[in-house]
């Protein structure tokens, strides 16, 4: 792929990973040169995470080979990967808050005599490594006193001092402020100087241009290109490679859309959101599209009254946004992103789950009527085509798609006029996805409004009539969906390309 004489530190050959019914990574081959920052980009579902999981030993490839410095590399688990010199910076931080920086850096590698800790050259080496990549962190400080960004740097230093030659970073800037991002970049550059290779995954294209030496683009599980970033003309070329000639079809303009605004949000502002204003019309499906951390979930929670924000939210002329109870009473329902933990009572049965948001309908002056519960459950299981042998099955036993349908049934039973769906098809298989889209469309056709909060472009382009584009807490612009919608423009906006105003 490259004619550099240097041998690659890491390479994959014809790597393939099959899941039941889907080939997540399809015959991917490329190599990563030593002491570079190698970026990995691609749309959601392009196969990045699957590829990374194979590199870190969390998943085993169906076929194909991986090599570290020319010799075979077959990690059976993350621990093998560490031994092989490949460390991963997880999104979730794995540091012990109660220990000091130094103690964290040497954790599990301490020298001891008869169980007693002894000072060793390791301590000095670790301190030196830390000083080399981030001199301002005091090794004797307690980790609990550090910021998220500093904790991340501790993890990086740990990986570097344990002799890792490759450090994989999956969206490391997702939780960082702008200033912290700059620091992290400094750390990454210093790592590169010390002969560590960084595999950097990010949706933020500006970061990639700022930091990367080379880039690999994946699309639909296939390898598109690997080349030096200096050979990439700019954002537009990268975006083009990411989306290819993909046609986001199956959207047909809907007739049920009205111009009657049911929800008017003005100047929503909180820690993340910056003066967000928009309207949602009756019978309309709107999409909120942006990267992780752009503010989608925050808007959904604000509309539902789950988080306090400043600004005003009027729903059917009535002020809402103070509490979920108020929102439900007004006719707003939220299907949260984490459906297993926030949307579903997994230890209850299907028939018990469906009516929970509107138990009043089941009772007659406080007396519970199980016949109504039975009717409702039967009705929605049929209507939403929930695949189950019995309505008395526990929700945890169902597939992701069927669980999501139950959550939707809950909202339907509650007679919501506005449905807020946060990542409605995450973890749902392709077949159930289509069914869920049908349900969403038919709900809107009946005169309800639906807001879809999604980080999948295909999803918002498939079902939404209007799409609000978010970046870094601001609503950048809105796009009317239609046959000639410009996907490249949308990607450009949500990855921070609003004409130099960003960072």
């Amino acid at each position: 792929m490259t004619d550099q004489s240097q041998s690659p530190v890491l390479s994959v050959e014809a790597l393939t990973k099959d899941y039941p019914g889907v080939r997540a990574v399809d015959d991917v081959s490329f190599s990563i040169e030593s002491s570079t920052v190698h970026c990995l980009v691609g749309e959601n579902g392009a196969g990045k995470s699957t590829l990374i999981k194979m590199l870190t030993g969390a998943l085993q490839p169906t076929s194909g080979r991986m090599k570290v410095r020319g010799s075979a590399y077959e990690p059976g688990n993350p621990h093998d990967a560490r031994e092989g010199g490949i460390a991963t910076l997880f999104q979730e931080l794995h540091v012990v808050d109660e220990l000091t920086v130094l103690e964290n850096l040497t954790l599990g590698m301490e020298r001891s005599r008869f169980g007693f800790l002894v000072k060793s050259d390791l301590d000095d080496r670790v301190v030196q490594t830390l000083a080399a990549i981030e001199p301002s962190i005091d090794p004797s400080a307690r980790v609990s006193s550090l910021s998220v960004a500093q904790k991340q740097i501790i993890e990086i230093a740990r990986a570097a001092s344990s002799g890792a030659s490759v450090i994989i970073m999956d969206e490391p800037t997702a939780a960082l402020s702008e200033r912290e991002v700059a620091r992290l970049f400094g750390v990454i550059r210093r790592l590169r100087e010390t002969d560590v290779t960084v595999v950097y995954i990010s949706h933020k294209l500006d970061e990639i241009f700022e930091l990367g030496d080379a880039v690999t683009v994946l699309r639909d599980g296939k390898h598109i290109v690997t080349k030096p970033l200096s050979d990439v003309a700019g954002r537009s070329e990268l975006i083009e490679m990411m989306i290819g000639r993909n046609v986001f079809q199956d959207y047909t303009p809907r007739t049920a859309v009205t111009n009657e605004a049911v929800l008017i949000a003005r100047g929503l502002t909180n820690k993340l959101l910056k003066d967000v204003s928009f309207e949602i019309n009756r019978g309309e499906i709107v999409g909120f599209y942006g990267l992780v951390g752009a503010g989608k979930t925050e808007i959904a929670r604000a509309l539902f009254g789950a988080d306090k924000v400043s600004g005003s939210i009027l729903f059917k002329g009535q002020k809402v946004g103070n509490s979920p109870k108020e929102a439900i009473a007004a006719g707003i329902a939220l299907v949260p992103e984490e459906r297993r933990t926030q949307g579903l009572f997994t230890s209850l049965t299907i028939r018990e789950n469906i009516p929970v948001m509107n138990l009043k309908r089941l009772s007659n002056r406080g007396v519970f009527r199980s016949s109504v519960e039975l009717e409702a459950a039967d009705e929605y299981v049929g209507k939403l085509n929930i695949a189950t042998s019995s309505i008395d099955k526990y929700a945890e036993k169902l597939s992701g798609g069927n669980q999501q349908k139950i959550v939707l049934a809950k909202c339907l039973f509650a007679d919501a006029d506005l449905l807020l769906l946060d990542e409605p098809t995450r973890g749902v298989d392709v077949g159930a996805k289509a069914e869920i889209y049908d349900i969403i469309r038919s709900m809107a056709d009946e005169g309800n409004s639906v807001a879809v909060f999604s980080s999948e472009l295909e999803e918002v382009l498939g079902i939404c009539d209007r799409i609000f584009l978010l970046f870094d807490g601001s609503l950048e612009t809105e796009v009317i969906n239609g046959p000639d919608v410009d996907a490249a423009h949308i990607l450009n906006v949500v990855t921070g390309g609003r004409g130099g105003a960003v960072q």
Partner: protein
Amino acid sequence: MMSQSSTLAQPPATRGVRVAHFLRNYYIYFVLVAVVALLSVANLDKFDLFERGNFLNEKSIINILRVSAPLLTLAGAFTLLMVSGYIDLSVGSTMSLSAVIYALLAINGVPFLAAFAITMVAGAGLGAFNGFLVVRLKITPVIATLITLSLFKGMALLLVQDGVSAIKSGGGQKMPGWFNSYGREGTLLNLPMAFWVAVAVTLVLVIAQNRTLLGKYAAATGGNPTAAKLSGINTGKIVILLYVIVGVSAALAGIARSSFMSLGDPLSGDGMELTAILVVLLGGTAFSGGEGRVLRSFVGALIIMALTVGMLTVVPAYYQTLVLGAVLLAAAASNHLISRKETAS
């Protein structure tokens, strides 16, 4: 490079944070002083445990330290276990069972050192059993040790049997003379062996916490189990070892108490688990694990005992538990405020 590093420099600790830090480290000693001072000015005339209205005299202090020996012995190990994020509700029953075993051995003519050693081994076994249930069978610690609380107590009751309430002199059998002196008679500084054993156990555990892998791994296990495992630490082994240490400490506590009372009482450890939890929390140990110091729990135990014994005189019996609860509530609240202040930087 310099300019870059300065952007990451931690904000200098504000005065408030420094004060909070200081308080977190030393507040327990202030509480001890305050409690002692309070009890010293209180009118203790009516009670003859203290001589003539003065709490701060040798006899009463020796008295308190004497009865404190079991709790002081237990507090350190219990702290380490809680630091690792686990708990042992069976300590009271382990104490009772050990007390009965020890008394049975003594009354049947087993010499002091042998009885002592056998009881400690028994305690280690009971602790290992707890560790086995929690680590190998993966039973939730609270449930597992609630089960053994009942189990161990049942065994203690079974060992006593025959309608007598405890193992003691009488019916042709007699406790040897050494039995009582271990927990009661002064040796060094007029304090009994049992107290000095408690001090020794605490010292050993303070060193273990600060200077050994065990101490560090306990904190790592309690602070972030996933990180500990990813670092290659065998957390299961650490936890089992800590349960064994708690078992041994509980056995020593049982020996101390049975010796003080001159009998092997199968109910002597009842309620000890709650007292131990209170002491450890008073010492600033986090219920969620990761955080806690052996020495502070030792001081916490002294405070609780001073209060309990001191209150026998000043406060009517039916208020005592309430006052104890109030003190702990105050401790918990101030602890929370301090740590909030500390992190609010």
